[in-house]
């Protein structure tokens, strides 16, 4: 394992990371972070994995999913759609 070299400037950077990855940070602070990232591998990993975390959740949110059968059945009953209960799209 790499030795822990977590400095106060790393910690300072953390506070702005979320805005940084959203591209919402002022140019000046942005270049400060970029400068820090050039020399700090740990923070680079944190930035990359933070971006990846957000990306993975975006992907999950756009998944097409079917409603569990029991919940679907109750929903159709509630909406008085019993007649069409068996017509579920197979996709």
């Amino acid at each position, binding site marked *: 394992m790499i030795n822990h070299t*977590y400095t106060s400037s790393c910690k300072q950077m*953390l*506070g702005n990371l*979320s805005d940084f990855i959203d591209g919402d940070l002022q140019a000046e602070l942005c270049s400060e972070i970029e400068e820090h990232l050039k020399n700090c591998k740990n923070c680079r990993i944190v930035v990359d994995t933070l971006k990846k975390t957000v990306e*993975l*959740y975006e992907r*999950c949110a756009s998944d097409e999913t079917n409603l569990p059968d029991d919940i679907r059945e109750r929903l159709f009953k509630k*909406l008085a759609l019993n007649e069409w209960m068996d017509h579920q*799209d197979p996709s």
Partner: protein
Amino acid sequence: MNQERSTIQLEKLKSGDRESFAMLVDETSGKIYNTLLQLLGNEQDAEDILQDTYIKAYRAIPDFENRSALYTWLHRIALNEALMQIRIQKPQIISIDNNEPFSEDMDIEQKDIVDFCCLPERELLSKESRHFLDQAVQSLPESLRIVFVMRDMEGLSTQETADSLGISENNVKIRLMRARLILRKKLSGYFNKFFVEEKEL
């Protein structure tokens, strides 16, 4: 729902045709339910609000003006219903103006530095990983979870989120950042096992 693949005829739907409405429910309810589950954090509430959403939608559909896609419109109804529920059940979540940007769970230690970006997609988005991702969101403190789901999963803007919750934009940003950092840390812990396994081989 996939707009191009959808066979629902809007005019029939707007005229109150039951079969078209049943099709709409089947095309959209899985995703709507997932959103509600993430936001509300429990299955019973999610199911109740799911039912309320479609009851409301059926009543409102004659006025649907096609300005936005059907799914977006339904999704908006569901979000509003869920937020109303949260306001009634847990007003404290909304009123807490948590401006404390750091807490212990945000400290980053060496063990939290795992470069899981390089893992293949099939690992990152496997069924097991997705399950972990869901669990991780559910384990967030509620005030953070709601903001994270609205911003990063539902794609609402900072301003929209702030307005819906009645908190400041700055507060939305702080909560979002905390949520993201906590999740990143949890995922590091989870994906670390792939690296350990690799080393053992």
